[in-house]
């Protein structure tokens, strides 16, 4: 087990350098002058451009720039935005909010998705199955921003009046439920389908038949034997999804004006704040890597075949 963990940890290093380098190059190499639109209808004064170029090492070779950035990153300095705000500070204020939102979304999709999946998987064809099939198809076909805006308008002040169009600066869990539904809706549909298929398949597996033949109560057959085996693919999905949700929150956070990481990227891209974008994406890469590591480890715990490989 320890060798397995070590191997997985070592694999993270090249992945980290590779992804951050790609991101850095891609973001800073976006064609166009970052100062082009900064000064309204006139061109920016040369003195301003010179100062900014120097401050952000823009005149250097992109590799040099990257290593300078990496150097300061390892000392805990995430860099500065063009208006002089520390990116580290921005991330520090916004990541708890995004984390809260992502957790709300994962809980919603896990609870609703798994319940729907287990129920339909056990019962098989029927009204409920059709209902879940139709509604998940519907949700999958809707992009997140449509779901978000529809929810915002339908439940907002001009609709049912249940929620406000934007959440407060430091939103409570309650305020995040509707944005969480919007954010998690797509994955919720996948979780429902994934667990339904998985359950339906395993229902006829030999070990389930054996368990029933042994005379075990249905709750134990379903709860322990069936669910534990069926949940592996779902768990993989949920784990990586938590990472995806942190990034996928871009649209949702933009719509509900949530000051999380997604909102930070949303504005960063709008204003061409490359420092912010790189910083947040690097963080997301870390979260992703960590989440997939955890999922792999959980896998190893759930399935001995992987552990002893």
């Amino acid at each position: 087990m320890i060798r397995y963990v070590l191997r997985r940890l070592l694999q993270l290093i090249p992945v980290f350098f590779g992804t951050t380098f790609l991101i850095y190059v891609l973001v800073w190499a976006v064609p166009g002058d970052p100062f082009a639109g900064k000064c309204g209808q006139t061109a920016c004064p040369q003195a301003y451009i010179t100062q900014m170029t120097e401050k952000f090492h823009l005149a250097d070779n992109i590799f040099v720039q990257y290593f300078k950035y990496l150097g300061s990153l390892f000392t805990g300095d995430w860099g500065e935005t063009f208006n002089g705000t520390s990116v580290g500070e921005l991330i520090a204020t916004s990541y708890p909010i995004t984390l809260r939102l992502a957790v709300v979304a994962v809980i919603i999709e896990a609870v609703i998705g798994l319940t729907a999946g287990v129920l339909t998987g056990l019962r098989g064809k029927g009204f409920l199955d059709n209902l879940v099939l139709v509604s998940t198809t519907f949700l999958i076909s809707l992009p997140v921003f449509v779901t978000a805006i529809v929810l915002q308008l339908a439940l907002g002040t001009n609709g049912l009046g249940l929620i406000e169009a934007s959440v407060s600066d430091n939103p409570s869990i309650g305020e995040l439920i509707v944005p969480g539904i919007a954010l998690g809706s797509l994955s919720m549909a996948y979780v429902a389908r994934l667990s339904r298929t998985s359950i339906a398949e395993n229902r006829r597996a030999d070990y389930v038949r054996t368990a029933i033949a042994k005379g075990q109560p249905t709750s134990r057959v379903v709860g322990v034997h069936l669910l534990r085996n069926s949940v592996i693919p779902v768990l993989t999905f949920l784990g990586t999804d938590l990472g995806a949700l942190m990034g996928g929150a871009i649209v949702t956070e933009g719509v509900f004006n949530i000051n999380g990481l997604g909102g930070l990227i949303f504005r960063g891209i709008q204003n061409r704040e490359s420092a912010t974008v790189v910083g947040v994406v690097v963080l997301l890469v870390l979260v992703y890597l960590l989440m997939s590591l955890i999922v792999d480890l959980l896998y190893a715990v759930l399935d001995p075949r992987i552990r002893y490989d």
Partner: protein
Amino acid sequence: MRRSRRLWGSSAVVTTLALVLAACGGGSSGDSTGSGGTDPDGTVSVYGTEPQNALVPTNINDLGGTKAIQVMFATLVGFKGADAQPFNLMADSITTTDSKVYDIKIKQGWKFHDGTEVKAHNFIDAWNYGAYAPNGQLNTDFFSNIQGYKDVHPEDKNAKPATDKMSGLVLKGDYEFQVTLDGPFSVFSIKVGYQAFAPLPDVFFKDPKGFEQHPVGNGPMKFVSRTPNQDIKLTRFDDYKGDDKVHFKDLNIKIYASQETAYQDLLSGRLDFMEALPPSAVAGGKYKADLGDRLVTGHLLGISTIALPYYVPGYDNLELRKAVSMAIDRAQITKTVMNDTYVPADSYIAQGIPGARTGVCQFCKFDPAAAKEAFAKSGFKGKLTIASNADGGRKEPLTAACNSIKNTLGVECDFVPATDFGQWRSIVTGKKLTGMGRSDWSADYPSIEDFLNPIYKTGGSSNDSSYSNPQVDSILGQADATADKDAAVKLYQQAEDLIAKDLPSIPVWDEKGVAAKSKNLKSAGLDFRRMPDYPSIEVLKK
């Protein structure tokens, strides 16, 4: 120079969808003006965007930052009323005999928010700071006609400035200083009303980094706190002596990522003021039903033109310019596409500016027959294009203009979108347009001069068409040098007449300025810079 840089990230798809969906939401509450009194200690929240730079007046020219700067600092001259009449705010008097040397006396007893008195040296220090090249301030060009600017800001970017003080600024006492310009410039006494000319307190020069965290101004409101991407909080400065006091206590500039969301909040009363409406609300005139008497209309001092750059092959052709101009049905487009948020334009100066006239551009009327005739004479072959950034509702009117040209002249015309404002401006300033381009201008300070020199003088900072007419240059030079205000205006008008004959760009429409207030406010105005007119805001008692 300040241009609406609202990059409403929502893609066209989002906008269209929001539009369709919003149409289902509809509904408005009419009972907005309650009969209750006003609350002098109320709180007002206004829509904001993240400032582009730290809140230092010489380094801010975007809408988001200006919204805070403008009310935190008081300049020598203020502007009031719909036509932005200049009046002496911090200045006691500004006198000149030759429009070259200005004697400026400031009022005594005014204080910065940290309690120190505003003195003449605060102005001189601030202006020197703004002009000094190594400081890299965005608004440095505003100081460029003060004597000695070249010494602190050499044209060669690698040269080290010889000094950090401009010779044209001379301290005459605690409350008096003298400004000498490179040459006569009659509009200087209005120009100093621009925010870049605000005084800076001594604490700024001691610790600029600390100042950025907690700016100290001399205006009607003082800084409380700022959370990036979230809000900027200001509160009333009770020692303020100016005429433009505010009639509420706290100001919360709330930063939104999406204008659509802000608009929803405005309708529900969570946000009190928005200086512009999202495209989905403007479409189909929906905002009129949404807002009712909460609609705030202003009078923006700005014009929208379409530039025909002289460097594009085939465009150096007066008949073509006439044909295109006469082929655009301005009245129809402003009414049906822009839903009365704009009015047709036929001159190069925004209406309301002293010296602005109507009908200066004789080719700015829709005249299909004459347009066809001019087009035949021009001998132009090929396709016409109009380029612009497509976000923020820019695309629709220009597409309509293109269609109008196409239908009238029978020539192919396409709208060419740029992804965002930044990319768009780099195309224009890099002189890489391959056809016509949107060329809008809003006044930095309300003067006829600000509509001509930067845009039509050879090498002007916003001369998008690369227009150059020696006669225009010489008349503009004369006008700048004329001390008598009325005589100067006459000369500027002459220059405008000449420009209207050459049609370097085609005036199309003027923006009225449509803003919105919430049901919590009794009154609110929109000023000529598309800023909330803070002194006019009154909060209803809850």
